[in-house]
């Protein structure tokens, strides 16, 4: 029986590369491709793949929140998160969301097959950086501190995070309502709750919060002339 993999990345060129890489393995098939987190969640529920590979930085619903939604729907989902950075915060978010694999995009050609194999064997796969962080967490505190356990951080629900991303991407409450099949009034209520929980006073504040917390990602051209590329897309 074939190992069925669902790919989610907003760049077709990356999906093509990932497909080519994964389908070289006999017995593996890419059963679906999604271009944002929302599509990934829908397709995963429908296709029930053995492994889901999600990029973190996707429009509409980012990969971390897509992972959260998948795990909430069925904790048996095996998710590998693809990321451009292995910062402590992103690692914690990925672990917290329920990802069982964590692969840097720049290393995907080298690590992704190993990551899928690991999950197939009911193991986890993380980059050395994640292993170090997890170990440090155990040594320092006896367990890994996740985002939800960190003190004084407001916790948004999955739905609130989803709405935060859409609002931060510039969508109106009406547009968000339409996308999520909610009433505009319900979205407005969520929006008020989000602003209150986070002590924010404007959409500008919300956008800054979303960027700082990896809910949305932005491109910074001014840095890219001299620094190594930090995003694949």
């Amino acid at each position, binding site marked *: 029986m074939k190992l069925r993999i669902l790919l989610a990345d907003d760049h077709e060129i990356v999906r093509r590369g990932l497909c080519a890489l994964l389908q070289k393995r006999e017995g593996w098939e890419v059963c679906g491709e999604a271009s944002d987190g929302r599509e990934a969640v829908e397709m995963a529920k429908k296709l029930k793949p053995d492994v889901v590979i999600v990029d973190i930085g996707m429009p509409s619903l980012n990969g971390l929140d897509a992972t959260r939604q998948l795990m909430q729907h069925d904790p048996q989902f095996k998710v590998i998160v693809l990321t451009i950075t292995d910062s402590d915060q992103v690692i914690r978010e990925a672990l917290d969301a329920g990802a069982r694999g964590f692969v840097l995009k720049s290393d*995907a*050609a080298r690590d992704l097959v190993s990551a899928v194999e690991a999950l197939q064997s009911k193991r986890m796969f993380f980059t050395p950086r994640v292993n170090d962080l997890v170990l440090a967490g155990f040594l320092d505190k006896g367990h890994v501190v996740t985002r939800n356990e960190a003190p004084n951080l407001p916790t948004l629900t999955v739905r609130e995070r989803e709405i935060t991303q859409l609002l931060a991407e510039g969508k109106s409450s009406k547009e968000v309502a339409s996308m999520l099949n909610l009433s505009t009034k319900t979205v407005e209520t969520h929006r008020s709750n989000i602003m209150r929980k986070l002590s924010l006073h404007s959409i500008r504040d919300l956008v800054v919060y979303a960027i700082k917390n990896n809910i949305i990602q932005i491109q910074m051209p001014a840095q890219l002339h*001299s620094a*190594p*590329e930090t995003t694949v897309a």
Partner: protein
Amino acid sequence: MSHQRTEHFMAVRILLVDDHPIVRQGLRTLLQGRGDWQVVGEASDGIEAVEKVESLQPDVVVLDVTMPRMNGLEACRLIHQKQKNKNKDSGLEVLFVTQHDSPQMMREALDAGARGYVVKSNAARDLLEAVESVSQHKVFTALARSPQASS
């Protein structure tokens, strides 16, 4: 050895330059759709790109902007400078495939001597047409925000 082409259906020899292997693989997969084109090599930064242009003499260099060691803009300038110093027209053209969906960056790329500019998010849509155009020495530019490419 010259690879100048007078007929658009003649083979186009392509060098792929991007620091992410998975992106190079994606580009290669796309380009394989054209049986008469050949990916003659790959490079992962600007310095390697300049070296491989010298050794492989491709017709088209598909070049990323932001890479370690030497970025694509500098590599593009250097590639053209070297061609100029040799005092010969090899017919080589540079096509940028980049994440930067920015008119300013596109202007900079064209100023550096590129013939084409495609945004990575739309590469699957635009790449083949862009390579086709620049290999015939026609300008091809397409930002993601623009519904249609101009060539």
